[in-house]
């Protein structure tokens, strides 16, 4: 029997490169001969914890006001990212994005993991945020999206109301800091190799093969 190979992904729902990276990683994983033995866990990383839960402005407003970027530079950056997202089949709509703090969304992802539905919810939340303009900082929206992703909605609501996974989110962020992770997406493959950014699918395939070959060679 083949040993399982684990991939840990640090990511944020409000990170456009993370959704693009998800597609590229999935393509790389699909090309890996041992894909059936790979398990993937998403971990919390708050890219912009200074974001209000309810922010009335646009992404351009937020980045120019909070990060000090000139508006035309932000618009150019978002346009370029939208084009790159389209190349991997994603339909980003930054004009519709509801900028929000993602702490609750991270708690929801931990709740989804406990329910065995984390990857379903990761995909649902990314699409909701970048393509559909949904408010992923709202408990009601997270419960609705969680239900669409196959979770027990009432259990999810109870966990969000109680803060059941707030410590787990904090532990993920602390682990990221311990690894020295400063940006996302970040992939830890086999607990040994660190891959930073939305790399080409071939990079992920080769990294997975390298870990697998080392495991075979060590037997």
């Amino acid at each position, binding site marked *: 029997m083949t040993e399982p190979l684990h991939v840990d992904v640090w990511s944020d729902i409000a990170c456009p490169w993370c959704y693009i990276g998800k597609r590229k990683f999935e393509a790389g994983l699909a090309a890996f001969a041992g894909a059936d033995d790979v398990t993937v866990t998403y971990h919390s990383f708050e890219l912009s914890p200074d974001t209000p839960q309810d922010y009335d402005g646009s992404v351009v407003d937020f980045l120019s006001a909070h990060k000090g970027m000139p508006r035309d530079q932000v618009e150019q950056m978002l346009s370029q990212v939208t084009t790159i997202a389209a190349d991997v089949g994603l339909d980003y709509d930054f004009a519709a994005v509801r900028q929000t703090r993602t702490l609750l969304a991270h708690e929801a992802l931990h709740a989804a993991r406990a329910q065995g539905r984390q990857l379903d919810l990761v995909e649902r939340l990314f699409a909701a945020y970048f393509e559909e303009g949904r408010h992923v900082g709202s408990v009601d929206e997270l419960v609705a999206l969680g239900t669409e992703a196959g979770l027990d909605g009432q259990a999810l609501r109870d966990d969000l109301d109680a803060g059941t996974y707030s410590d787990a989110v904090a532990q993920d962020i602390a682990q990221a800091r311990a690894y020295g992770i400063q940006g*996302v997406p970040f992939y830890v493959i086999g607990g040994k190799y660190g891959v930073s950014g939305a790399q080409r699918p071939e990079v992920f395939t*080769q990294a997975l093969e390298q870990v697998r070959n080392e495991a075979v060679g060590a037997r």
Partner: protein
Amino acid sequence: MSELPLSPFPPPAGLVPLGEQDVGVCVDGVCAVPEPVPDAPDPEDR
């Protein structure tokens, strides 16, 4: 198949870095687009 080259970016503590530098990463809320790598000059143009 050859092994992946080690990346030149600083290794996160305890991890061996793989992959290329300056790909799509979001840091502190800013998600810069990497500069395109210029094509290598065609040897026939030299």
